[in-house]
């Protein structure tokens, strides 16, 4: 059964929102990468907006444009992946608990601090009474939501909205600095693939996709495979498993025209990308995407957004290519993301 992506919109630290193509000029960040914000007044009235933090506004605006773009009759269900949920409101709520010595707390930040606020808000906006899922599975949160959508389509649903949303806040950035999540030395996002030191680049994003049973004029790509492994059992086992799963999808390694890696500049974590690149996909065209969006739990969703544009435009921008190899026609893109040899995810999108 074929499953399609009929809408794809991403708010990110680059000018990606409502863009039909991947921006070729990257915004350079020295430190944490935060979203380029659209004018939210176009999406929400002031009374509504006052209870919405930045992540909720980004999430709902990206979802709205994705739904518009897909031109669907009915939205059957919503599945959102978010590693850390609404961080800003969580921080406000916890700080107020401390400030008031655990006294009476204001309700708004508590209500908005829960992970499922994102999917719930979209359901309210679109009066979607279908299933409403939130997956908080760290670095495979988005992929888990995507798998949920695939299962729902296989059960007979037509249109499922899937999102990958996370935010970085100054407080969270500083906390994670203490546990060496970010690079110690001065760095910027453009150098993410030229680093040989530990630590990565902090990022965020809100990407939404309309996963549908039917191909339409708005279709970006077909989802051929979503495969997750909590840990890798070595390269040869991984290669064998991937080969089998690709065969199940009617593909082989040779059919993959581009492999998009989740390189994030962390010399320890990137080792695993090097291994997969050199030992399984050595003769393929390679690309990467986290210099656009930074690292966050649902950054794979940005990779999927990038793959939809690459397939639709049949063009891989120069600053996405890793190495010198190129291909004239991009039919099948494989995305590989992982975090320190955990939560390996492989997604294959195909032109259709």
């Amino acid at each position: 059964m074929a499953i399609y992506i009929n809408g794809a919109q991403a708010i990110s630290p680059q000018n990606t929102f409502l863009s039909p193509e991947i921006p070729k000029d990257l915004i350079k960040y020295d430190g944490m990468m935060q979203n380029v914000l659209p004018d939210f007044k176009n999406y929400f009235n002031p009374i509504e907006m006052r209870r919405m933090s930045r992540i909720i506004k980004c999430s709902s605006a990206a979802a709205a444009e994705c739904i518009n773009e897909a031109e669907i009759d009915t939205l059957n269900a919503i599945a959102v992946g978010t590693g850390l949920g609404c961080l800003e409101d969580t921080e406000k709520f916890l700080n107020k608990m401390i400030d008031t010595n655990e006294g009476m707390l204001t309700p708004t930040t508590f209500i908005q601090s829960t992970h499922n606020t994102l999917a719930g808000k979209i359901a309210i906006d679109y009066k979607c009474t279908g299933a409403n899922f939130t997956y908080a599975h760290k670095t495979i949160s988005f992929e888990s939501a995507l798998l949920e959508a695939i299962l729902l389509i296989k059960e007979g649903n037509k249109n499922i909205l899937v999102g990958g949303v996370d935010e970085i806040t100054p407080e969270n950035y500083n906390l994670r600095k203490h546990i060496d999540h970010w690079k110690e030395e001065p760095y910027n996002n453009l150098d993410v693939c030229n680093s040989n030191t530990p630590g990565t680049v902090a990022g965020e994003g809100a990407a939404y996709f309309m996963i549908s049973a039917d191909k339409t004029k708005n279709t970006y790509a077909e989802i051929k495979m979503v495969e997750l492994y909590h840990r890798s059992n070595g390269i040869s086992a991984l290669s064998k498993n991937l080969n089998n799963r690709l065969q199940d999808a009617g593909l082989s390694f040779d059919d993959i025209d581009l492999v998009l890696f989740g390189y994030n500049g962390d010399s320890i974590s990137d080792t695993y990308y090097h291994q997969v690149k050199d030992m399984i996909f050595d003769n393929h065209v390679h690309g990467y995407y986290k210099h656009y969006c930074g690292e966050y739990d649902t950054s794979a969703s940005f990779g999927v957004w990038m793959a939809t544009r690459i397939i639709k435009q049949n063009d891989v921008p120069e600053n996405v290519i890793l190495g010198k190899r190129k291909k004239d026609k991009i039919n099948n893109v494989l995305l590989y993301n992982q975090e320190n040899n955990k939560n390996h995810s492989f997604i294959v999108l195909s032109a259709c």
Partner: protein
Amino acid sequence: MDSLIRQLKEQIIDHLNLEGLSPDDINEKEPLFGEGLGLDSIDALELTLLLERGYGIKLENPQEGKKIFQSVETMAEYIQHNKK
């Protein structure tokens, strides 16, 4: 009284995140709920906490809220009479 009304308007804007509004945009005689500012039940809780934290006034009887939170003016009058 005028300075209390002004202060209250600033606190309401701040506590309820009424972005884009200034104290001059709020008519102290207009209803806070329904019409006027169009506040809702969550805002009522926020205003209850504003009274408690900002002025040391604890609302023992929730039924009182309806009268107290009618407008900025009624809130100011209540604060003036009950401030600790």
